[in-house]
């Protein structure tokens, strides 16, 4: 049984229009899942359903066997599913960074000594140790987001849901966070579900789900997904820029192989094509 299992889930905010329609998705332990889709396609709604912030109207989601439909399971589910949202301002609660990070574990009744360890771990994971005693209000947007991520990491969740959490970070900050997330995924087998508009954050995922108008329109590996350029365009999405450039070079007659998704790979392939004569 998958760690997180969503079966035929539907949800509506106003009982008229379904924001999420009949979605089935399963996440295994250690899996790296990316969910992409245009603005308003239902991705963020899905994130809120995963940890029981909202409950499905139809279908069910189970986490480690606990059903989100049962209120008494809410606590068990939130221990396992940590969600980092788009806007860190909505997610920071305390006036000092370390208190903010401690908020989650304190609520779970984690012993004091361990809380300290968890703060150390979480702040160093996001590269914010220096700001331990700062006020979050004095931090930049990117720094705030890293604190929000640290707050979730301090809960040691089995599943980390990132709802466009890197959108406001600078390239360096984004890379650091992605590295942290990938490391947690690889070394600690944390399951990652990342909801993103950055096509280049998708290329390393094990499985990609494409959402369109509340439904899962496509599912597959990144290579399988990005092969379907025209369908993606129809869903309001695009290829990663490196893939787009590769396509255009092929159209001009450069003999590049298919399926290039990253700039690293494209650079390699281009260098290999240097004429010796």
């Amino acid at each position, binding site marked *: 049984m998958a760690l997180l299992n969503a079966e035929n889930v539907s949800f509506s905010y106003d009982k008229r229009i379904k924001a999420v329609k009949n979605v089935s998705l399963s996440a295994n332990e250690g899996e790296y899942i990316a969910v992409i889709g245009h603005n308003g396609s239902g991705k963020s709604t899905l994130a809120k359903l995963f940890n029981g912030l909202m409950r499905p109207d139809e279908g069910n989601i189970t986490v480690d066997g606990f059903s989100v439909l049962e209120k008494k399971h809410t606590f068990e589910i939130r221990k396992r599913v940590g969600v980092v949202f788009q806007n860190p301002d909505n997610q920071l609660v305390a006036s000092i960074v370390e208190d903010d990070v401690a908020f989650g574990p304190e609520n779970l009744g984690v012993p004091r000594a361990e809380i300290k360890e968890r703060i150390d771990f979480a702040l160093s994971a996001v590269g914010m140790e220096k700001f331990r005693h700062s006020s979050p209000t004095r931090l930049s947007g990117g720094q705030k987001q890293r604190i929000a991520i640290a707050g979730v990491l301090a809960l040691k969740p089995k599943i980390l849901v990132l709802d466009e959490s890197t959108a406001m970070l600078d390239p360096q900050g984004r890379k650091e966070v992605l590295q942290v997330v990938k490391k947690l995924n690889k070394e600690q087998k944390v399951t990652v579900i990342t909801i993103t508009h950055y096509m280049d954050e998708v290329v390393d995922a094990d499985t990609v789900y494409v959402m369109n108008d509340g439904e899962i329109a496509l599912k597959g590996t990144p290579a399988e997904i990005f092969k379907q350029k025209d369908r993606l365009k129809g869903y309001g999405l695009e290829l990663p820029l490196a893939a787009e450039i590769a396509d255009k070079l092929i159209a001009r007659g450069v003999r590049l192989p298919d399926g290039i998704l990253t700039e690293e790979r494209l650079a390699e392939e*281009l260098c290999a094509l*240097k004429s010796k004569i």
Partner: protein
Amino acid sequence: MRIEVKDLRYSYGEAKVLSNIALDGVSLTVEEGDFFGIIGQTGSGKTTFVQHLNGLIKLGKDCGSIKVGGYDLGDKKCDFKALRASLGMVFQYPEYQLFAETVFDDVAFGVKNFMPEVSLEKTQEMVKEALTTVGLNYDKIKDKSPFDLSGGQKRRVAIAGVIVTKPEVLVLDEPVAGLDPVGKREFISLLHRLHGSFVKTIILVSHDMDLVAENCTKAAIFSHGKIYAVGSPKEIFSRYEELQNLGLDLPVTAYLTRALENNGVKINSDFTVDGFINAVRIKTNGKIDGGEL
């Protein structure tokens, strides 16, 4: 309107504390007609800098000078309302700033606030034009609550509220963050449309190097509250190693150019995608000609 900033200094709290210093002697000129990119790491002073341009952050005593067209921001008699009508500012996630009960009231706020002399009829005309410019249907949307709109629509309404006074200069801080790829593309083409009409100058603060390389005519790199370099995207993005040392990414085109250069292939382009693709010399066998280094 030419924007001329000289030796601008600003600190959050006491300047004696080094970490409080946000701007440490910034001098920068943005010419009328520029599509100007401002890049730099988080905390490098980009946002603090642009917030000075319309007086949102007051220019301190002995903290340099700022001139925007005929407005001297250090002058006590500077008319900030008029300045703000002609230098529009769009913040990060502008949709969070919508507040009025209807889209009409929200967009009209800028007119009422900055141009109180304008009649209701004229205001209506201006609101209609602004909403049409951003691609929204005035009659369909004007009476709706801004909070009932989709994210993309909200952002357009927020932009309409800024361009309603027809500013000559438009300053945007991370304007495409959070938009999906198609929304992003549409938004950028909106910026170019505006740049070809009443908006003469655009200043774009962004972390997205591909965006800057593709769209800007000039760019400045901020680092630790100072300007590190100013130039065309071609000049800026060919400083590969320095950019990396500053913790900044390269646009994909510059990344590829550098990799090829290290392998003996010279590509001379302006770092736009089409510029790069057309600069690659392709042999009939599909291989790449090295050219002269």
